[in-house]
């Protein structure tokens, strides 16, 4: 079983009910596959990057690689022109994916080379109240994955996968 991270090349093309996705598939996706990003239209997979575990892998899940599938509506521009590729060349860009009960519950894109923490509750950035509260998800473990040598012009220098547990009781004492 492989963990697949899907995101559009250009997130400005997303509709309100679409977003980044995490799937668990028996085989990795392939260029040319089509799937939904949460809404009523199909996106084309235009690239698949393999990221391998940095040290030992996710032994609990028996997984050593994850796959990053790039999605677009139709043919994609040259990879060198992708926004994420440009950001990765200018920043120490890494993607932190947080998984709870097998689904993506939070993500953030760190740009200064920091590493995610364990033992913390995931944050919720409020749009209207402009304050940060806690989600009922605690980060138990984090595993780092690095792009394989076959990945030219990577979008991230690493992808961290955080396994989370649902802890609503923690919000009452946080």
């Amino acid at each position, binding site marked *: 079983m492989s963990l697949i991270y899907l995101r559009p090349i*250009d*997130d*400005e093309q*997303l509709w*309100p*009910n679409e*977003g*980044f996705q995490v799937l668990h598939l028996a085989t990795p996706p392939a260029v040319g596959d089509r799937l939904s990003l949460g809404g009523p239209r199909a996106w084309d997979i235009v690239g698949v990057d393999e990221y391998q575990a940095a040290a030992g892998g996710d032994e609990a899940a028996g997984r050593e690689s994850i796959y990053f599938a790039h999605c677009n509506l139709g043919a994609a521009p040259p990879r060198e022109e992708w*926004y994420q590729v440009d*950001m990765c060349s200018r*920043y120490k860009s890494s993607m932190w994916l947080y998984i709870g009960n097998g689904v993506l519950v*939070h*993500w*953030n*894109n*760190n*740009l*200064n080379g*920091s590493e995610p*923490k364990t*033992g*913390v*509750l*995931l*944050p*919720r*950035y*409020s*749009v209207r109240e402009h304050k*940060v509260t*806690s989600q009922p998800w*605690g980060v138990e473990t984090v595993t780092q994955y690095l792009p394989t040598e076959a990945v030219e012009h990577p979008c991230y220098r690493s992808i961290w996968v955080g396994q989370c547990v649902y*802890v609503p009781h*923690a919000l009452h004492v*946080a």
Partner: protein
Amino acid sequence: MTWNPLEEKREYHCATSEKGCNRLLDALRAQGLDIELVEKAETGDDLLHIACIFDGPDADPHANRWQSYHETN
């Protein structure tokens, strides 16, 4: 296990896309602020689904950088 809240002390503003964070950075720097874009996170909001997080000497989590029309008229 004791779970600690992730204390956020940096400045953040929300955008509709990741590229919007770069535009916000340009706008903040145009104000003369010594500030850097250090992280982007999802908000869960349908429209402003990206939190653009800034840090640096002039970053202020309590700053009100942009006033609404009603506040200025």
